[in-house]
């Protein structure tokens, strides 16, 4: 038993420590002093503590950037530039989420709300660091449990409670699947470290030779499929998205998605390298790309088609995010370095866009009295600035240039066509994705129709706090910048993804 180098661990996980401390401070502050204040003041005070904590967490992350790749605690957690970058992304998403929450009625338990939100961020950051099955599972649970609790924060509302229970039940089942799958993988390979699994897999002779490994792979993908909400494991998402307080929906749809996709990418590309099989048209071969290709196709078709008939904005965005998970899977199916880069790029764009969209929905719906589509009638006159932001975010989701969503999607599809470009083996999936994007434009425009075209009964202007406008405006600028000039971030990610898939064949 090696002695644990506590100092290195403390230094490596400085950001997580700061966030945990900030969560405790937020709790105590609320308990001790803020409780006597008025509700909005209380929410803003505690929220500010959370923001300060998150901003402080940037410092250790920033300092470690550019350093060599290090592993902590016997290889369970890793730190390199890619991981640090994505931890920064998580911090950024959490900051915006807190800002949205400060403007939103989250109920009486303000301290608990922000503390749990910060714990969730810690979970996501650990998830991004994790390189070992048990750590991955624990971090995933930390994230998920925080989100279950947050979902139920609309104490008075039945649909919030229902959503939380549903989310929790599905989450628990998916965790069981995941754990079951991971245990098989451990059983076959005798190790829980991703890198060691990759080496061990090579000696087992692949899926055909080892039914146990195939079972493990299948159940692992099912488990992750629940977490990222792809068809047929998506049933919790629309209810959870609709029922949760809107800032929490934003958090579920962005922060947890980013972390889950990141770790899924790592598990598949590092741990299960060599088991990818093939999803080329006319040449299907068992392996994870085939499974992912089928779920991607189902998600794109069902997500987009089901979104058409929705009347609730959050539900609509939930189905849209199911469809987007399908698009992201196309990049994973490519199973190349370009594919990895495109997935990383897309989840950043996707997270920013969705965060912005839910942020606008949160700010407007709490003032317009509901989050049905008809509550947004005539919003372009009542809140011109936020409506413009809504236009930008929704069109980015629809994949309209020059916004980030367009380039992200283009790059995902391009990376899939590039794989087996000789015979256009993955073109079938890309064609499906492109046509489903055309379908998606319909419901995105229906949403924008309510905002821009239809006149509402209520014409009174809606005023939102400046800090929120600025924060959401910055998110919109980032979405535009990622579309107009993606070069710097692409180069950054491309450099990083090399370290992720080092030794990868394609």
């Amino acid at each position, binding site marked *: 038993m090696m002695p644990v180098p506590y100092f290195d661990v403390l230094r490596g996980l400085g950001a997580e420590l700061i966030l945990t401390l900030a969560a405790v401070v937020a709790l105590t502050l609320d308990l001790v002093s803020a409780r006597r204040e008025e509700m909005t003041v209380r929410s803003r005070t505690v929220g500010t503590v959370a923001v300060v904590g998150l901003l402080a967490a940037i410092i250790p992350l920033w300092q470690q950037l550019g350093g060599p790749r290090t592993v902590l605690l016997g290889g369970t957690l890793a730190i390199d530039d890619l991981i640090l970058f994505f931890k920064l992304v998580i911090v950024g998403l959490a900051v915006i989420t807190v800002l949205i929450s400060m403007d939103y009625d989250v109920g009486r338990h303000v301290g608990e709300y922000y503390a749990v939100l910060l714990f969730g961020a810690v979970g996501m950051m650990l998830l991004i660091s994790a390189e070992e099955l048990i750590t991955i599972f624990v971090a995933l649970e930390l994230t998920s449990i925080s989100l279950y609790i947050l979902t139920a924060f609309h104490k008075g509302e039945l649909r919030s409670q229902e959503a939380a229970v549903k989310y929790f039940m599905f989450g628990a089942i998916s965790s069981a699947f995941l754990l079951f799958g991971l245990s098989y993988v451990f059983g076959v390979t005798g190790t829980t470290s991703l890198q060691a699994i990759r080496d061990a897999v090579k000696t087992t002779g692949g899926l055909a030779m080892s039914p146990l490994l195939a079972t493990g792979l299948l159940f692992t993908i099912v488990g992750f499929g629940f977490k990222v909400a792809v068809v047929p494991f998506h049933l919790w998402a629309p209810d959870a998205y609709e029922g949760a307080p809107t800032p929490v929906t934003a958090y579920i749809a962005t922060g947890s998605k980013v972390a889950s996709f990141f770790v899924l990418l790592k598990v598949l590309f590092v741990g299960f390298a060599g088991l990818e099989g093939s999803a080329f048209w006319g040449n299907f071969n068992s392996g994870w790309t085939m499974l992912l290709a089928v779920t991607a196709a189902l998600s794109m078709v069902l997500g987009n088609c089901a979104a058409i008939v929705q009347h609730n904005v959050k539900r609509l965005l939930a189905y849209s995010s199911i469809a987007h998970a399908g698009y992201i899977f196309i990049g994973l199916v490519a199973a190349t370095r*370009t594919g990895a*880069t495109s997935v990383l790029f897309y989840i950043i764009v996707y997270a920013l866009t969705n965060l912005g969209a839910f942020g606008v929905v949160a700010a407007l719906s709490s003032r317009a009295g509901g989050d049905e589509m008809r509550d947004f009638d005539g919003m*372009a006159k009542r809140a*011109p600035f936020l409506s413009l932001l809504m236009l930008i975010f929704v*069109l980015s989701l629809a994949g*309209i*240039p*020059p916004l980030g969503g*367009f*380039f992200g999607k*283009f*790059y995902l*599809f*391009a990376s899939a*066509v*590039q794989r087996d*470009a000789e015979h*256009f083996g993955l*073109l079938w999936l*890309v*064609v499906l994705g*492109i*046509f489903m*994007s*055309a379908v998606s*434009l*319909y419901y995105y*425009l229906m949403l*924008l*129709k309510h905002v*821009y*075209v239809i006149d509402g009964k209520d014409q009174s202007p809606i005023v939102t706090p400046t800090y929120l406008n600025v924060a959401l405006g910055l998110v919109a600028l980032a979405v535009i910048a990622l579309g107009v000039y*993606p*070069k710097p971030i*692409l*180069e950054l990610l*491309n450099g990083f993804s090399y370290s992720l898939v080092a030794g990868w064949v394609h």
Partner: protein
Amino acid sequence: MHVDWTIYLTFLGVGLILLLPRESKTLIRWVALVTGVVALLVALKNYFNYNDWVNAQISAHGALQDGFVQLVNVSWIPALNVKYHLAVDGISYPLVVLNGFVCVTGILFSWNIETRVKEFFAFFLTLIAGVYGVFMAMDLFLLFVFYELAIIPKYFIIAIWGSTRKEYGAMKLVLYSFVGSALVFIGILATYFAAGGRSFDILELARHPIKPDVQVWVFPLIFVGFAVLAGMWPFHTWAPTGHVAAPTAASMLLAGVVMKLGSYGCLRGAMLLFPQGLEHWKWWIAVIAVIGIVYGAGVALVQKDFKFIIGYSSVSHMGFVLLGLATLNLIGMSGAVLQMFSHGIVASLLFAVVGRMVYDRTHTRQLDELGGLAKVIPFACVTFMIAGAASMGMPGFSGFVAEYQIFVGAFHMHPGLALGAALSIPLTVAYILNANDKVFMEKDQPAGGGHGQGHEESSDAHAALPPITLPERTAAIILMALLVIVGVYPSIMLNMIKANVQLFLKGAP
């Protein structure tokens, strides 16, 4: 300031308008107009320089040496070898100028819009900037970006400021365009990787031939994808409903320039890159084009709604463009490019008469309810007759020069094509005269009998219509002057078109 500044200036105009307070409507209109005019002047100034340069090259060498005036060429997204590459040639330049004119006149014809002026002109100029971009983009990716950028504003312009079934028309139009661009998207990706994943640059792709078996299936994807927007039969059904639902300026833009985006995309994105694919499919294109020409004209004849007549006439005239392109000979293709310009002006003018001059005053477009307007608004009648004459292909107007060449080119390809397309000539004359008769002449005249029979009593229903305003008059005169100038002196445009079509036919990009 070279011609690429038209894009930047127009975007600048959008930015300025967004910063202005929404109450200052007049200021917003003027900002939009000044933006449009400055961009047009930039385009025109360089146009004449370019024309002189082309003529000098032709007289010196007998042909064009270098096909393009390069504007910008910088790396944009290295990960996919995407370049920000803008250039113009004799094919795209007339269309850039067309866009400038339609923009300015469209703004003038929208001077009476009172609701949500700020948003209207912001969307309008965004669309214009996107169209400028498409006509100059020499990188498939960039072309696609500008192309999509032009689609979305159309939805809002039609859905917010339109009339008859506006939300339906707007959605139909956008979904058709978007499905078309989905086909193009697939085609572009396939092209890129079939050519080795080196570049999206059109000129570079044209230099590296793609395998014939790939060409045969990628060509129709890109061609049809763009042709949807060009109103190709049987994918034209968005056009009449879209045109009818759109406010005047948007109909002008749709028929005037947006449909040209489609035919230009066919020429630049599909025909240039896939010579073998084109060879394989050209008869299909020609036959479909002839069907569209005759069908559009025939359907226009039986319409009851004034705007539907013009909508279907656009389908018919865009069929000429596709037919001309499919002929693959110098005269036919040059005619097709000139027809793009000519129809852009004609359609703008016709929609301005229908939408702005007639509908905004009478609030009806039903032929049965209109009548006798020649007495009340004679200017509208004159404008309609001139535009109608150009539409019929009367000598002296640009439409004649263009369609005549297309007929000759089609005859070279196969006499049957020219004969089939010629069926549309009597139909066109009939629907224009029919509309003129029903709208502008007195009601109690026997139908079909010419015009101007000299009845003295004025129509009581439309006696007190507001007179034609100065902006309308100015814009109409600009457009009519263009029809005559290009009709009488076609080489102002035709020389540069011919020079580049010749290069195209030689196989050089």
